[in-house]
């Protein structure tokens, strides 16, 4: 929305539109790179060498494989090779009913599963033309922000470890676990919650949830401040990240990049503020932006966003209204368990929902939310049946991955790890 300074405004996207050998993207056949017998390199010659990194490298965040063209220790061109975790979840989504869908999509981005469930549910509700009760919307907002904290803390853990601050793995994961403990208490599971469903959420908040979450909000800020002491001001950490992997906002926009990478480049765009969904228009929070678009800015943006999420969670506690936690439309949400023993209609509704599912009017819709990684979208087509005709998830990591070759161009091989980490891809979401 707002460009911070003239250098960013004058920046160009020329670098990312190149097609030929001058592009930073190494567009070669990935199958042949893996065949060692075809490699014919004189080790003394001063020619670039192609090196495979991954897919089982510990700092590639899962099964990301990078094909790097190296000149000595410098990376010239590179290409991320993906698909090692592809399980056909979009195809699976066409076989499952709208009722079962969240179980499937929650396994895509396993670091922020609630956002996947949210975007699927919002798309289904948009097609159905229903609006969920206010309390359900507030619960969704609250849970998503808790999930954003846990996701950004996981980033702090892996980012610290990737650049050599191994103890950050403990600091970051401790905060993540504290947050996941609350999520487990509310949803029953640490991950893959299947909590946000079409029509509302699966269960109401438990008794004493205010104290539980309030305790978390007291606990987190001093622990997050520790990151400032241990990392932000630390010269070695700054040397590793500052000026590494810089990308400007024009390039980000051309590449369709969203989330902390775009904001780190100084461009304030956040769907929560600019295209509000749920109850974000009633909340007070800041959109965090960086200046230089380098790895350090992306680190700082995520750290500050976790603090903003704590602010939002606090407001959610104060503003949580009473009421239904899901829509009382028995065609969409199942009746309470106790009603099934008393009411024939409740039994029939329960049986129909869990065997056939509910029918969704014909149409197509695109819905997007701001996940910790950027714009998470769901394009859903219904043919009037109980299953999505087409369910496409616009995964932010999948699109953001395209920045890597440009960030790595002319970087050192040691910076490659820092750059992968700062993009923060979740390979389950990339490959789906």
């Amino acid at each position, binding site marked *: 929305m707002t460009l911070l300074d003239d250098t960013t405004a004058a920046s160009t996207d020329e670098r990312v539109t190149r097609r030929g050998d001058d592009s930073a993207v190494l567009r070669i056949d990935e*199958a042949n790179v893996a065949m060692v017998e075809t490699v014919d390199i004189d080790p003394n010659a001063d020619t670039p060498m192609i090196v495979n990194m991954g897919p089982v490298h510990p700092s590639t965040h899962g099964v990301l494989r990078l094909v790097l063209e190296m000149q000595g220790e410098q990376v010239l061109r590179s290409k991320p090779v993906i*698909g090692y975790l592809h399980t056909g979840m979009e*195809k699976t989504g066409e076989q499952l009913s709208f009722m079962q869908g969240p179980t499937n999509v929650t396994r895509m981005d396993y670091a922020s599963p609630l956002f996947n469930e949210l975007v699927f549910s919002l798309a289904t509700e948009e097609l159905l033309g229903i609006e969920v009760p206010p309390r359900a919307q507030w619960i969704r907002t609250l849970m998503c922000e808790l999930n954003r904290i846990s996701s950004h803390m996981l980033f702090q853990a892996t980012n610290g470890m990737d650049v050599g601050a191994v103890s950050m793995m403990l600091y970051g994961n401790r905060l993540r676990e504290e947050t996941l403990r609350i999520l487990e208490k509310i949803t029953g599971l640490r991950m893959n919650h299947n909590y946000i469903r079409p029509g509302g959420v699966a269960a109401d908040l438990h008794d004493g949830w205010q104290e539980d979450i309030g305790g978390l909000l007291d606990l987190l800020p001093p622990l997050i401040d520790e990151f400032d002491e241990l990392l932000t001001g630390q010269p070695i950490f700054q040397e590793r990240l500052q000026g590494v992997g810089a990308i400007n906002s024009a390039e980000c926009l051309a590449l*369709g990049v969203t989330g902390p990478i775009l904001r780190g480049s100084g461009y304030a765009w956040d769907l929560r503020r600019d*295209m509000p969904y749920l109850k974000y228009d009633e909340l007070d929070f800041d959109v965090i932006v960086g200046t230089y678009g380098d790895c350090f800015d992306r680190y700082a943006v995520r750290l500050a966003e976790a603090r903003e999420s704590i602010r939002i969670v606090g407001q959610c506690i104060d503003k949580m209204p009473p009421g239904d936690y899901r829509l009382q439309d028995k065609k969409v949400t199942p009746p309470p368990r106790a009603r099934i023993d008393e009411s024939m209609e409740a039994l029939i509704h329960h049986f129909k929902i869990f065997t056939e599912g509910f029918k969704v009017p*014909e149409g197509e819709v695109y819905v997007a939310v701001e996940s910790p990684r950027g714009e998470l979208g769901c*394009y859903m087509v219904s043919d009037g049946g109980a299953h999505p*005709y*087409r369910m496409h998830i*616009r995964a932010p990591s999948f699109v953001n991955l395209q920045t890597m070759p440009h960030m790595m161009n002319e970087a050192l091989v040691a910076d490659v790890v820092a750059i992968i980490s700062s993009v923060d891809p979740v390979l389950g979401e990339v490959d789906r």
Partner: protein
Amino acid sequence: MSDEATAQSDALDAEGAIEADPPASAYGVPVTNERDQQVLFPDRDNYIATIEALKADGFVSAVDLCGVDNLTRAHRSLPAGVAPERFEVVVSLLAHEPPRRTRVRVQVPESDPTIATLFDLYPGTENLERETWDMFGIVFENHPDPSRILMPPDWQGHPLRKDFAVGTVPVQFKGASAPR
């Protein structure tokens, strides 16, 4: 400058007209406004021209591009003048000032599943177009890297097509003997 001003005023006219009474066309192509989401229906010949006009109107990012196989959905409702074909390529565009979205749906026939690439306008569609080729077999002409992205390079078929069966192909590893 004058060109930009004209383009902007054109866009404003188009938007104002949509709010008043849904017109049959915007940017010279059929348009619908279902569920408050604007959808444009260019054909393959004016696909690039439409996207160019949208980009000039402030749609800075192509956030999403995907395919749809309408094998069993030939009777779906489309605006007048749009002939249904088996495949559709769906592009979601995002503008920031003011924040708004639009969607472009292009019909792609089964007999000739090709369409122009958006790489030169929005380089971020490179991976998304590779995925659409991988999953639906839709060829993006002049794409810089027309290769599979999610499936193995030696995979046969395009999994998200409706006639690609589920559950009939056993889990397959490269090099292992398989019926197909």
